[in-house]
Each structure stands twice: as C-alpha cells, then as structure tokens.
C-alpha cells in the first residue's frame, strides 16, 4: 500500500483497523456515486468502443489492429466521440491560462527558466512580465542587467501559462500584480492530479492572515498574506527615483526598518505550518485539495487540540481519513 508515500507514520493496531475501514468506506461511497473508478485501465488494456464510427483517440490511447489501447494507467473518459485516458500520478500537463507556482533555476538572457514539474523547464520572458514601476515600455539593456533584482535563482514565483511556442518550449507570463515573487512561506509539492483547475487559485484566508496558492502544477504555496501593491498611484511614482537611489546600496544589508517589514509574527508562522501540515496529511491520503477541505482539516486540528507537530502523526492521519468519510457521505445525502 502507498498510504505513507510522503508521510512516514507508524500506526498502532487499532489505528490500522480504523484506517482500513475508513478507506473501505471511501471506496463504497465513491463507487456509489460515480462509475469512474470502474473505468480504470492499465497499460495495454483494450478500451471498448462498441465499434462506433469515427471515434477520436485522445491522450493516453493508441490504435493497435483497429482496437483502441490504453498507453497509461488511469481512468477512461469519454466526451462525445473523444476517448482519452486521464492519468492520476503523472507529471503536470500545462494548459494555457493555468496558474502555476515555480522555482527559478536559471537567469538567462532576457528570460528566467523555471522548474514547474513539467517535462521541460518553463520560460518566463522579461518582456512578458510587468515591471515594478508599472509603465508599459520596451525592455532596455538596463532592464536586462537588473533582472536579478526582480527574481534570483531559487526564488519561488507565481505565474500564468501563456502557451507553447512553435519550437515546443513552454512560455509563462506574469502580467498582473498578483503574480510575482513569493516570500515568507512554505512551498509544498504534491501530485498535480490532486489540484483541480478552478476559477480561483489564489485564496486569502482572512482568519489566519495567510495566502494560499494552489498551483495547477501541484506546487502549493502557503505564505503570509501580502497586500497587493498598487503601483499606479501617482505620488508613489514621484517618489520612486529617490527611493531607488537610497534603497539600492543596502539591498543586502537590511536596515532596521526593513527588517521590521519582513518580520513574520510567530502566530502567522504557526498558521503557515498548520495549513502546510494539513495539506501534507491530505495529500498523503490522496484526497483532492480544495480550500474547503484544507480549512476544515485545520479547524479540526484546532478543535481537537492537536499541536502543529502532532498533525503529521498517526492519530491525526486516521482522524482526517474518518472525517473525509463523514464529509463525503453527508454531501451525498444532500444530493
């Protein structure tokens, strides 16, 4: 069993039994509502198409002797005439408009290279991101030289998938204030099938003062809440020239005032860890990540007086599984 893929928890005998029953119940509940798990295939399984005319072969399928054969392990999905296999555990497949979180691995001429859990590195061009001063203009050689003042190697950033170029490289864009460098938080990498594409990927959890970004590529950011700066305010721009001059020399040696600004209070840090641990437990159980489930898990840990470090222990792990059974069965009843 792969229960403890990321988390290494040692369960006692009773906990094992409880977990087992919880998982069996999850199976029953899911199979009652949808037949999707029954449509699961493994590599080289033939997908029955009832000799329909003009079936379109999608991802994860190939044609062998007139039969449609799966080339992946996953679930068969049918949309009108299209037949494809949806994989579960696989690397991220980008789609235009996806919001992703990535890590800068290289600063190259006019571009940054990002690791985003795809089969290649993604490219973020200097020209496809807004400058700090908010002015739309051509990027000059000076801008190019100052690239490291925007993002450095190993910075975690958030961006949007722009699309594939003709040569097959993946391009990103960050044309809004909500995109950009992420600081003061934790990056978690989970399997990308656990994050569904939704309208909202940025979440501001007001009760905790936390920003949560569920990247489509399976990178999840939990960090202190930052107010989106509005650089378009005019008087701000007037101050800009002198501000730059003063702040530039002491980028490395932070002044006391700046240290004050970058200081994260212990409560916020604890909240970050609490949410991150909730995500860790949920992903190792293989439950889809949504804000509601994450918050419910955090609330539960608080209500039951679990310490932050106890959240990655055996007892909480089993309780989350049991809670999930409860949640799903009640949501079915509502329907």
């Amino acid at each position: 069993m792969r229960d403890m893929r990321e988390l290494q928890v040692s369960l006692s005998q009773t906990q094992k039994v409880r977990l087992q029953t919880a998982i069996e119940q999850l199976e029953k509940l899911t199979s009652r509502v949808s037949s999707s798990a029954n449509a699961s295939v493994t590599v080289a399984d033939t997908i029955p198409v009832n000799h329909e005319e003009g079936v379109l072969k999608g991802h994860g399928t190939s044609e062998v002797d007139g039969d449609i054969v799966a080339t992946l392990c996953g679930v068969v999905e049918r949309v009108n005439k299209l037949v494809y296999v949806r994989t579960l555990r696989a690397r991220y497949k980008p789609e235009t408009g996806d919001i992703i979180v990535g890590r800068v691995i290289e600063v190259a001429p006019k571009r940054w290279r990002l690791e985003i859990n795809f089969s290649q590195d993604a490219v973020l061009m200097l020209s496809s991101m807004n400058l700090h001063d908010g002015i739309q203009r051509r990027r000059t050689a000076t801008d190019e030289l100052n690239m490291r003042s925007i993002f450095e190697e190993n910075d975690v950033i958030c961006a949007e998938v722009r699309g594939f170029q003709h040569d097959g490289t993946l391009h990103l864009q960050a044309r809004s204030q909500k995109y950009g460098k992420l600081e003061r938080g934790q990056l978690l990498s989970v399997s990308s099938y656990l994050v569904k594409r939704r309208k909202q990927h940025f979440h501001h959890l007001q009760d905790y003062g936390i920003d949560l970004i569920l990247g489509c590529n399976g990178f999840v950011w939990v960090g202190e809440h930052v107010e989106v700066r509005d650089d378009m305010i005019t008087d701000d721009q007037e101050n800009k020239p002198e501000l730059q001059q003063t702040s530039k020399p002491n980028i490395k040696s932070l002044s006391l005032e700046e240290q004050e600004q970058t200081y994260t209070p212990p409560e916020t840090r604890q909240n970050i860890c609490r949410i991150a641990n909730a995500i860790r437990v949920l992903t190792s159980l293989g439950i889809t990540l949504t804000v509601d489930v994450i918050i419910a898990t955090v609330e539960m840990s608080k209500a039951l007086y679990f310490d932050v470090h106890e959240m990655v222990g055996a007892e909480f792990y089993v309780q989350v599984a049991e809670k999930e059974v409860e949640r799903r069965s009640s949501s079915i009843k509502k329907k």
Partner: protein
Amino acid sequence: MEYVSPEGLRLDGRRPMEMRQIRAELGAIAKADGSALFEMGNTKVTAAVYGPREVENKSQQLNDRALVRCEYGMANFSTGDRMRKPKGDRRSTEISLVIRQTLEACIMTHLMPRSQIDVFVQVLQADGGTRSACINAATLALADAGIPMRDLATSCSAGYLNSTPLLDLNYVEDSAGGPDVTVGILSKMDKVTLLQMDGKLPMETFETVMQLAVDGCKAIAKYIREVLQENTKQLEYRRGL
C-alpha cells in the same frame, strides 16, 4: 550435482515449471515520480523513475524523442560475499544497457521530445534472476510515473539442468553453469524484446525452454496488471469527486 530430485522437486522444493513467489509494491520511494519494489522469491529490487524532465546534458538532447537513461546497481550487502566495487564494473554496465534497451522498446519516447527519463534500479537482495526482476520493477515504476508505454515489458528466466527445463532459476541453479535463457516480452503484443542465453542448447530443447520462460513472463505480466489496476482504483477512490 543433482538439481532435480527423483521425485521431481528442485533444491528449494519447487516443481520444475514453478515460479518463485512474486510480490510487487508501488510507491517505495517518496521523491521519485514513480517507484516500485519487486520481489521474486529472495531476489528483491527497487526501481525509481525520474522524469520526463529537462535534459541535464544539452548535447545529449534529442529533438524528436525522449532520452532514456538507466542505472543498475547492486547493494554491497545484496550478496553473501561483500562486493569490492559496487558500481561501474562490466556486469552492471551490461545489465544497465540491457534494461535500457528493453524499456526503450516499450516507452513511447516520441511523445516526450527534448526530455529525459532516468531509471534507477537497485538490487537489495540477490538470489538469481536479478536482471529479470529489475526489468519487472522498472516497468512497474514507469507505469506508476504515468509514462506512456506501448505495452508492459516483463521478463523471466529459464534454464536446463539434469535434462529438465526449469523456470525462474535461483542463485544455486544459476551458478550451476548450465544453459540459461532470459526472455523479455511485451505480453499483449506477443513481441520479444530481450533474449539472452548463456551456454548452449540444442534447437528443440531451446524452444521448449524459451516457451517456458515466455509463459513465466505472461504470468508475471498478469500479476503486474493486477497490482497496477488496484493502485489506479485506490487513487481514484481516495481522490473523491
């Protein structure tokens, strides 16, 4: 030495056409994109797959397909006598190559151009048939990583001792010096992707021995499919709606 007793039993108590117990487990290594543990009797191997990911060495990058790399290693403690050099000897290089070629035949590399797939197989416990076990483990790990494949490549060995064809040789039988055949097949497509033989065999016996190995491969493929199917179902159930 007598490898098959008059009652028709082998040294470890198996029948000539009997395979050792096999067991497979997915997700043995947390950080890998796909991983598996595979046991054939006392032989125990792990496989980890990384990728498809960006090519490390740009000069090796292929513009029309993925680069497949494979590294085979035996743990120092895997055999009775301690090995002097765990990596880089000729035997491991040869087995790495054999595994790579077998896997390349089944991975649909043209779907992942300009990327690389790394397969690491590590023998934890060696008791004959390591290369077969490694191929089986690697197939499982590739399927776990969600890499598109034409078919599942499985492998099994067979030998010929005391004028009896024997399936799935263990270490004692392997080191008896008799002829042994390692076969790798794509089970659904009925294609042979690997065929190695040490020693000599007359044509007719070779065919029976090879057929025996092929049957072994099919039995393994059946088991591997069950494991993968169960794993997929589990993931889908747990994910929820």
